[in-house]
């Protein structure tokens, strides 16, 4: 095989494909094949072994887990290079024709959780039909949220970054967390299934179109889609901060996550072009503040981080398991 193969996250996919294309154009080597399999699926394939049958890179919308790292090692995949490529803000957005929205995480939790505490702190099935039911400051519109399906890492992140934090903002649940962590976990991990939350598939583009057609609906997706479609949709502020390059890069906008690409160092030399591909990925032209990935919606790393990442990646420093969780 003389062609790089890449699998993994659908969130990182648009960026990696852009790099792959650029790489193919300028290096004179074959353009890498990029498949979107989801972060978890990508890890699984990536860790299945070394050799031409297994991919050389995997994209991930979260850091590799310790368990996955160990899995890799067991299969002989021991030299893994981690490249942190930037951030993705999870955005809650609606049509430009709709109202301007500002949410708190707790409001989002109340609107989307399967069970919410009632006045006495007892858990009941989510009774809220309109946003106004959740909080009087919100518009009097039906709750209709198009979001990622359970198969995606985006959904995982949303639940961890918004629902968990949102639940903690409620006193009775905070108490529950102390007394029964398991039960608490179940509360924030369960998204309502009565039709207010709609699994909208992986076709984020269709979600955008649907939002445009339906001004009351709200969608959840990665920042890059908001960036691409700013003429149609707008992002809601969460805990007072609107999603933008600046707020995400600076960490003010809290609902964001780092994105990674993992390389299999053992394939270097066997599969041509791996080093060059990494170089292209971390070049200023690509990952820099004005790089082409930024225009694709990737929120670049702040300057120092970027330099560090770049140096580490170009040196192909391998990952140590003990840094992982």
């Amino acid at each position: 095989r003389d062609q790089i193969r890449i699998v993994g996250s659908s969130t990182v996919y648009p960026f990696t494909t852009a790099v792959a294309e650029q790489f193919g154009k300028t290096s004179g080597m074959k353009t890498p094949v990029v498949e979107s399999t989801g972060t978890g699926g990508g890890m699984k394939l990536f860790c299945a072994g070394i050799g031409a049958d297994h991919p050389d890179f995997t994209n991930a919308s979260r850091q590799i887990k310790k368990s996955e790292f160990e899995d890799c090692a067991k299969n002989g995949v021991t030299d893994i290079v981690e490249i942190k490529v930037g951030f993705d803000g999870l955005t809650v957005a609606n049509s430009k024709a709709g109202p301007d929205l500002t949410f708190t995480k707790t409001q989002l939790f109340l609107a989307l959780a399967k069970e919410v505490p009632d006045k006495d702190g007892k858990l009941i099935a989510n009774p809220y039909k309109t946003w106004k039911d959740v909080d009087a400051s919100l518009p009097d519109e039906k709750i209709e949220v198009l979001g990622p399906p359970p198969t995606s890492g985006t959904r995982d992140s949303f639940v961890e970054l918004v629902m968990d934090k949102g639940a903690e903002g409620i006193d009775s649940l905070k108490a529950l967390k102390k007394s029964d962590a398991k039960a608490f976990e179940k509360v924030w991990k369960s998204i309502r299934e009565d039709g207010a939350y709609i699994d909208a598939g992986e076709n984020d583009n269709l979600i955008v179109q649907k939002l445009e057609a339906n001004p009351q609906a709200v969608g959840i997706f990665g920042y890059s889609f908001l960036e691409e479609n700013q003429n149609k949709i707008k992002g809601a502020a969460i805990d007072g901060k609107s999603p933008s390059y600046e707020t995400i890069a600076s960490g003010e906008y809290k609902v964001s996550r780092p994105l990674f690409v993992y390389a299999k160092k053992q394939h270097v030399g066997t599969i041509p072009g791996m080093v060059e591909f990494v170089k292209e990925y971390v070049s200023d032209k690509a990952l820099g503040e004005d790089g082409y990935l930024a225009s694709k919606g990737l929120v670049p790393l702040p300057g120092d981080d970027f330099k560090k990442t770049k140096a580490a990646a170009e040196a192909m420093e391998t990952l140590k398991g003990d840094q992982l969780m």
Partner: protein
Amino acid sequence: MTDTAISAAPRRVSDNAALVAKRYRSERRFKLYGIAAIAVTAVFLVLLFADILVKGLPAFFEHRMMLPVSVSQEAIDPQNSKDPKIIRTGDFDGPIRESFRAMFPDVTSRGDRKKLLGLLSSGAADDFRAMVVNNPSLIGTDAKVPVLLSDDADQYLKGRQTGVAKIAGQGTITASADGEKFKLVTDKTPVLTAGDIVRLNGGAFRVVSADNGAYLAEQVTAPKSLDPANAGAWDIVRFTVTEHNRRIDDQEALWLEQLKEKGVAENGIAWRFFSSGDSREPELAGIRGALTGSILTLLVTLFLCLPIGVAAAIYLEEFAPKNRLTQLIEVNINNLAAVPSIVFGLLGLAMFLNFFGLPRSAPLVGGLVLALLVLPTIIIASRAALRAVPPSIKEAALGVGASHQQAIFHHVLPLAMPGIMTGTIIGMAHALGETAPLLMIGMVAFIVDIPGGFTDAATALPIQIYLWSDLPEIAFQSKTAGAIIVLLVFLFVMNAAAILLRKRFERRW
């Protein structure tokens, strides 16, 4: 028995005129239902095609500029090596950007420059590079090169972002600074509305609000002076979509308008759409990779299922003894013909990829899966074609002492061939449009390079359509529809060939 004469008085049909009228009404109504059903179907088809055509035709055009560029030795081939490999890595973007910037000498700030260059495609230099690589003697000369605009600029120029109206200024207009804003005063009845751009003295102002007789405006581009402008020296540019609902802002739109006015930006046929592979940039993306993948896949399919299908049909139609085995085969074929295609995808995934370890995303596997998928169709069509050859032909051959196989291979099969070909073409057309099973075997991937063999990674045309429909850039929507048009053209050609073949060789025995 004759004595059982009809006892009732003779009834005559015409007695009951009302009934007759009613029967005729119901007759007409019934016929109308049929016509209506066909009409509804036809209207649906027309809507479908119209929708796709409207969405897809822009995909076949692109906007580019012919820019004069100096092909500099330093930037491209400093060592004067004349080696295409080295030339290829030269800096082609620089000269183009320079030349483009030279068209807008007024643009000086870093931010504006960046914005201006953003109007160029990231592949703007591709054509230039190819030109020089093919013809190194250009180095050191000045050349006119085609420069591709970005997808957003292209969409704007195609009028797909906003409509533009340009109104010549009537009377005299005066702009004067008013704090951060500017005040515009005309001596004619008000013609301006909020959002209008007024261009005067080389600058541009966006009207913000009307202020009894005068207008409040913000500066978009700085004018050379604030002298009053007379009729003819100023104009109004009015967009149908407000700025914040566009991906091209007013400033960029004005630049593009200038390009248009200078006649630099031209709309040409996007041959690139047919000659390049997939890309993340809509303006660069093409269907050649997917088309090649489809063709490779179909070759595998055809190569497998035509001989196997025809052989199976001959066996079943002519040689199969009536026993359990052949009955089983028959039932199997009929059932396979109706097994959902996605289940064949599961077969490909579990058998070809996981069990036999064939490569992912390969036309070989795609072809195998599709071959199994269309095999029943071809067998059934071939059997029908064989059956349509009258037995008298076979008997005639047997009668002069031909063996059963001779009778079939010399007489029946050649006569059935048009029918078999028709069935095969229709089966292939079906395979060409099939998507779901290919998704299952990894043919859904981002693949730029044109596949060169049966085990290279490849996608297929319908998968490309599915992938593009998923991408965020709006320009991909028309690419999707454009690819659909190409796919449909192929299908029509195939179906038309099948119909012609059928017509041409239709025999009434």
